């Protein structure tokens, strides 16, 4: 096992050990990726993941660095640009 693989394992243990939280973040991102052109709000996203709005924002930002709303806006901008 080389140094890089050891580091990946170590960092995974520190940052990515909570699989329930990761599922919430990943599922929310996938929903936005697919349905970005429909009406999406925080109530809906939280409802889909059976969690609170505040928990969802916190978890999403922890793993993707931006809030779900910022992610949605970025997604729409990128998609719009590609259409031109």
């Amino acid at each position: 096992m080389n140094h890089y693989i050891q580091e990946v394992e170590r960092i995974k243990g520190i940052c990515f050990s909570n699989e329930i939280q990761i599922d919430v973040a990943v599922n929310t991102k996938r929903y936005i990726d697919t349905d970005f052109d429909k009406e999406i709000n925080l109530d809906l996203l939280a409802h889909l993941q059976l969690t609170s709005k505040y928990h969802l924002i916190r978890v999403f930002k922890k793993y993707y660095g931006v809030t779900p709303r910022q992610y949605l806006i970025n997604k729409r901008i990128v998609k719009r640009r590609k259409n031109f």
Partner: protein
Amino acid sequence: MKIKVVSVPVRDQQKALDFYVDILGFVKKYDIPLSEGNRWLTVVSKYDQDGPELLLEPAPNHFEPAKVFQDELFKSGIPWTGFYVDNVQEEYDRLTKLGVEFSLEPKDVGTVVIAVFNDTCGNNIQLVEEK
């Protein structure tokens, strides 16, 4: 400012071009002869041919510290850079059939899946799939 070109150090530019085009599937963009057999040699993603170019530059052959740095990164298994793919497992299957060697098989790391392969030009390269 725009990010137009990023570079990967290679020991043999022709070998690198063959690997990056024939095996990885990039497209050659510029191939401009420079002095002493060196070339300004860039490739782009076939899905984004106006996007950032990857410069296959022979720095390790002409600047000893670049060679030392590249060698040490390679020995440690650390990727020089990474490329995004839709599905790491599928790309891993495709590349291993073509003889590409992986030091890290597809691995789930939280919000991404990664794998690391040897580009045969002195570098480890990481594949990344966003989940």
